[in-house]
């Protein structure tokens, strides 16, 4: 859980004081995670940027109603998820799209440099990129964005057990990948 009490302070500042500095810091602090998240769904970074901007505008215009939100970060991701799926619906002109329908691009594996430091970063990135979509999203939301099981479940509309299953799967696959790359050895 990263800086949740800070987020609450920011939330109050935006809702009651219409504090633009607080709003700006919220926008910037969530930018990277939000864009990555929306990009997985829309496959289009430009669209992800617009969707995030629109989501944050909605947040601003909630005014003092904003304090009623129990968990601002999760809420923003949920709104963003809906906006992204709606965007996909318009793009694909179909009436029903869920997270299940998202395919992942074949991400080319980047080759790995011989020096230890660079190699680890790249290996880990490669490993994560080979995960199936849902595992990838769960892994990123939990590991990179610091959401809890419950929050992740809310964002992706899944059950908490499913979330843990996906996370377990993701970690297992990453470990297997690192093993094949020779970075770790499994005890027999």
């Amino acid at each position, binding site marked *: 859980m990263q800086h949740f009490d800070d987020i609450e302070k920011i939330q109050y500042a935006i809702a009651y004081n*219409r504090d633009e500095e607080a709003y700006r810091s919220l926008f910037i602090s969530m930018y990277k995670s939000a864009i990555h998240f929306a990009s997985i769904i829309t496959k289009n970074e430009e669209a992800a940027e617009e969707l995030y901007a629109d989501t944050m505008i909605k947040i*601003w215009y909630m005014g003092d109603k904003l304090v009623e939100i129990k968990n601002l970060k999760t809420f923003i991701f949920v709104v963003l998820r809906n906006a992204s799926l709606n965007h996909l619906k318009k793009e694909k002109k179909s009436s029903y799209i869920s997270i299940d329908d998202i395919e992942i691009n074949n991400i080319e594996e980047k080759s790995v440099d011989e020096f230890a430091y660079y190699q680890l*970063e790249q290996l*880990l990135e490669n490993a994560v990129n080979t995960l199936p979509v849902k595992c990838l999203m769960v892994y990123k939301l939990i590991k990179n964005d610091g959401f809890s099981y419950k929050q992740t479940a809310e964002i992706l509309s899944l059950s908490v057990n499913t979330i843990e299953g996906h996370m377990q799967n993701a970690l297992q696959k990453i470990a297997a990948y690192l093993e094949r790359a020779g970075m770790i050895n499994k005890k027999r």
Partner: protein
Amino acid sequence: MLDGRFYILISRKLSSEATDAELNELNASLDADPEKRKFLEFLLRPKEDNVAMNTKAAQAFALQQLKIHLHNEAHSGKKDSTDINPSNRGRGNNLRKTWLSIIVVVAFSLSAYFFRGYLFPLKLGEEVATLKGVKSKLQLPDGTTVWVNSDSKIRYANDFGKARRDVWLEGEAYFDVKHDSKHPFVVHTAKMDITDLGTVFNIKCYPDDSTTEATLIRGKIDVSLLTRKGEHITLSPNEKLSIYLERGQMKSRITKLNELISKPGNNMPDSEALLIPETAWVNNKMIFDDNTFEDIAKTLERRFDIDVEFQQSDLKGYHFTGTFEDEDLKQILNILKVTKPFDYELNGKTLIIKE
């Protein structure tokens, strides 16, 4: 301990869902198996702070602010509960000030967008970028000197000098690396990584060029090609490595530099090192050695900040040889015109080459 259980424990730890009992269980299994500890350490490694991402975020915010203010302008005068400043009436001045500052920020952001990353020559902490027509000379924290050519970007790592010295380059730069065998100096480009082993070298890797080149003046460098895992090429002084695409395949070629310039024995003194075509730019010279008009045009584009268009494409194949130093663009073109038949038209920043 079954592996499945291990991953569940890690998962719970990462999401802060683990109970004390579970954390103890996890620690016990990490103690029992050092490979498991290794795995967890990989996962928990801190990621590098992304300066470029924060700039992007700030620009995105500025654009979004414009949207909000436009929305407010459209609704100004109406009593609107969604207005940013509820007690707006007494604050005309403030709104105007904010509006002006938004315009400035947006103009800055938009111009940055149009330059697509070619920001004004500035130091964003650890990154330097040069516009077309601009060169830059830097000193890195370790005493290494780098000359950066026009239209290039160079960045060095946050922890530069701690264990290694990493640098990322897009464009062209000439390096005089401070010798330090304990801290490998590595230049990362899109197509290859160059490890310096105590040297002076030039790297040319502009994204819109079809070829990437590394020219070694003095010392030794090791080049690893990113598209061919594990393949390393070691260059000796006076050698130039070119990477290019041929029929969809990445090829490499090593050429010996003009033997007339190099001395017998391996080390070229610095003044002569800057007389060869590959490094002449450092002293503001342009040396063309049987280069095509197409390649020359690219060099002119970067040097004079222009766009070059060829009206007839066979003009691109003209070859020229010559050295230029202080001549301006028109003088250079007039000199080239003497040896090959062509005409040109210069309109502001666009140069048209025609018959």
